[in-house]
């Protein structure tokens, strides 16, 4: 079946502009995650959605970052007034359930470059 889909695959934006990154999780997966990966680094947790529960926003680096998940499916990560340090690959993942022991399934990410 289809995996996690992210769009766009690449995004170049000017410093100060807002960007929106989209994630389509695997159908039926109730948990959705956003991670950020800087060049040559590990994955940094940003935010987590589980069903209708309040999202875990503990990883968002500043109030310029926000995310929403509409209808329990598609999610959008928004970065306002982008800065050069926001340049990274933004990865979305989903899993059948958030708690318990189930692996995350990742998309191929959106590479964001802020000039």
């Amino acid at each position, binding site marked *: 079946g289809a995996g996690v889909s992210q769009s766009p695959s690449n995004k170049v934006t000017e410093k100060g502009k807002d960007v929106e990154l989209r994630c389509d999780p695997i159908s039926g997966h109730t948990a959705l995650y956003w991670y950020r990966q800087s060049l040559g680094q*590990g994955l940094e947790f940003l935010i987590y959605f*589980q069903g209708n529960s309040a999202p875990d926003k503990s990883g968002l680096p500043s109030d310029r970052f926000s995310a929403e998940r509409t209808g329990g499916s598609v999610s959008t990560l928004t970065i306002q007034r982008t800065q050069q340090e926001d340049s990274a690959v933004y990865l979305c993942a989903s899993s059948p359930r958030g708690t318990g*022991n189930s692996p995350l399934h*990742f998309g191929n990410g959106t590479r964001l470059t802020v000039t």
Partner: protein
Amino acid sequence: GESVGLHLPTLSVQEGDNSIINCAYSNSASDYFIWYKQESGKGPQFIIDIRSNMDKRQGQRVTVLLNKTVKHLSLQIAATQPGDSAVYFCAERKAGNTGKLIFGQGTTLQVKP
């Protein structure tokens, strides 16, 4: 803070040899661990997972070992192939947590023909 670290940033092995990638974790409350493989330009791909009530788990050509006493995790790849060349990440999840995984920095595996 919480961290998962890898002992070596790069591991170079000969094709056909076995590979061992190590990972140290700091949170004794973690009860679930996963290994991911990431190829260039792609998202991490699930390899194998293990729960804290197990010491060893085997998959196809891969084995994960968990030593909770010293908080150490390892991934063994048998008969390493060129297609195994990638960055490998270990990740942990704290018991009762929201479900988020904490990732280490990654080890690059290079397979020499």
